[in-house]
């Protein structure tokens, strides 16, 4: 006789350590349905953005995510520059190269972060420690360029805030050179390991048709054979001036997603190298003063996929609408198919394979527009989260 059991994973995901809740409906070992509950880290950023002036918003949206913290401000400034006539027409040459370098270094550190977590989760703690060990020099590069390991504060409407000094270029190149053998090692240790293959192949499959239907983006889409990449399809920065490949796999399982990310590391290293070699001298900021009325769209390929920003201006110094769509918003939803049909032990891995970023997904409101009072603050949210867990404990026995 079949017996339906509900297993909650969360609100703290065992792998990602970010708050969300997956309610798994299982029969025996098999997952038959899944309910995704979000909202624990909902901060009201879209609303907040309407109360900041255009320059401040770049800093605000950088706080959406601590891992892909260059993608959100970059997509935002692209959207504003779209109102002004397009990035290529507004931003100085050198700034375009610097933006691309930051964007790609970010991809390298983000993919290494995920690789480490994935290794940890399947019990390969050596992979975890080594991936994060090799991520560290990349963060040092960031600290050298912009003074911070994360939250770079580089994006500015019309350019970048800091230049890359000439004396830093050889240090960056050496860091990249040192990274290649490490990626080679990961490629061998992860992709050729029979145990990892057995553990990851066939798990959490998202077929090509499902990927299209759920509108997923980034490595999650590319691992399922959907050949999309904003960097190539709608080039920004200097992606159309360097040689690189879009990595696409067909299988759609966790192994394919891992493969895509590992191989993308090579491409990212190559892109940064080429940019460092080609970068011309010159201005880094166009010194934009006013934003005319109009609407603009900016999207970039964040490490997790397309990050989309829509900005509308009415000619004042604040946006009147700012819509943000992080890649995980589409990717996490697809867990509904990727995890269903698998076993419980595989499900958490499948859920994490899209490299979800919950903070990105929940960036909306905690303000009451009518009274302009905060309805919830951080403590309330924590309390709410705890209460919700308590409530769940009572309902799910």
């Amino acid at each position: 006789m079949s017996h339906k059991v509900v297993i909650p994973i969360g609100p703290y995901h065992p792998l990602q350590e970010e708050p969300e809740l997956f309610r798994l409906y299982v029969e025996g070992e098999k997952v038959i349905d899944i309910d995704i509950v979000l909202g624990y880290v909902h901060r009201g950023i879209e609303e907040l953005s309407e109360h900041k002036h255009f320059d401040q918003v770049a800093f605000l949206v950088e706080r959406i995510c601590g891992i892909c913290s260059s993608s959100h401000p970059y997509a935002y400034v692209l959207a504003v520059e779209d109102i002004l006539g397009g990035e290529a027409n507004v931003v100085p040459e050198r700034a375009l190269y610097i933006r691309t370098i930051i964007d790609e270094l970010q991809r390298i550190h983000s993919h290494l972060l995920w690789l480490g977590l994935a290794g940890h989760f399947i019990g390969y703690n050596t992979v975890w420690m080594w991936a994060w060990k090799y991520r560290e020099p990349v963060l040092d590069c960031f600290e050298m360029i912009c003074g911070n390991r994360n939250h770079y504060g580089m994006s500015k409407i019309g350019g970048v805030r800091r230049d890359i000094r000439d004396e830093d270029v050889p240090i960056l190149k050496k860091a990249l050179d040192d990274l290649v053998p490490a990626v080679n090692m990961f490629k061998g240790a992860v992709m050729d390991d029979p145990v990892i293959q057995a553990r990851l192949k066939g798990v959490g499959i998202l077929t090509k048709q499902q990927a299209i239907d759920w509108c997923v983006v980034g490595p999650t889409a590319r691992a399922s054979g959907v050949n999309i990449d904003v960097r190539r399809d709608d080039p920004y920065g200097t992606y159309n001036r360097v040689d690189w490949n879009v990595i696409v796999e067909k299988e759609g399982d966790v192994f394919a997603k891992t493969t895509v990310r590992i191989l993308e590391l090579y491409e990212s290293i190559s892109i940064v190298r080429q940019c460092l070699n080609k970068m011309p001298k010159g201005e880094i900021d166009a010194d934009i003063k006013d934003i005319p009325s109009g609407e603009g769209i900016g999207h970039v390929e964040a490490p997790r996929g397309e990050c989309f920003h829509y900005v509308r201006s009415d000619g004042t110094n604040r946006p009147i609408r700012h819509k943000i769509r992080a890649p995980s918003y589409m990717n996490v939803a697809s867990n509904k198919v990727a995890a269903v049909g698998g076993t419980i032990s595989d499900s958490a891995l499948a859920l994490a394979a899209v490299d979800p970023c919950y903070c990105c997904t929940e960036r909306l409101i905690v303000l009451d527009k009518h009274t302009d009072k905060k309805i919830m603050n951080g403590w309330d949210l924590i309390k709410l989260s705890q209460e919700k867990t308590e409530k769940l404990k009572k309902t799910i026995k």
Partner: protein
Amino acid sequence: MSILEKIKDKLDSKIIDWHEHSEKRMYFSVKPQDIKEVAGLLFNDLSLRFIIASGQDTPKGIEILYHFSFDKTGQIFSARVLIEDKNNPSIESIAPLFKGAEWIEREMWELLGINFIGHPNLKRLLLAEEWPEGKYPLRHST
């Protein structure tokens, strides 16, 4: 035939106005009652990817932009609808056409109070259960 011509050809009678912001950014308006058919044509027949929809409270009514991308050329086509009835805004759901629209319609429902007719699972996405009914955080007027 370019995708631009194909869209204009397929949607011909549905398009109220067409605005070419740049080579890669197109905006066009359609009537709210046509949105499901338009979204179906763009997504299924012309294989555009649905990026997201963005709702906005404007003085004239509730406006929704449905952003679609044609990744082969990197062009973004945004279909605009204006729902004039602010007291009880409703529009047909496009979530039955493709799964990718499910969450954003739930989000617009809770934040802007737009009723999506035919949505398979219209419940809260981001707001807490304790959030009062009938309060829509992204609405500018009461």
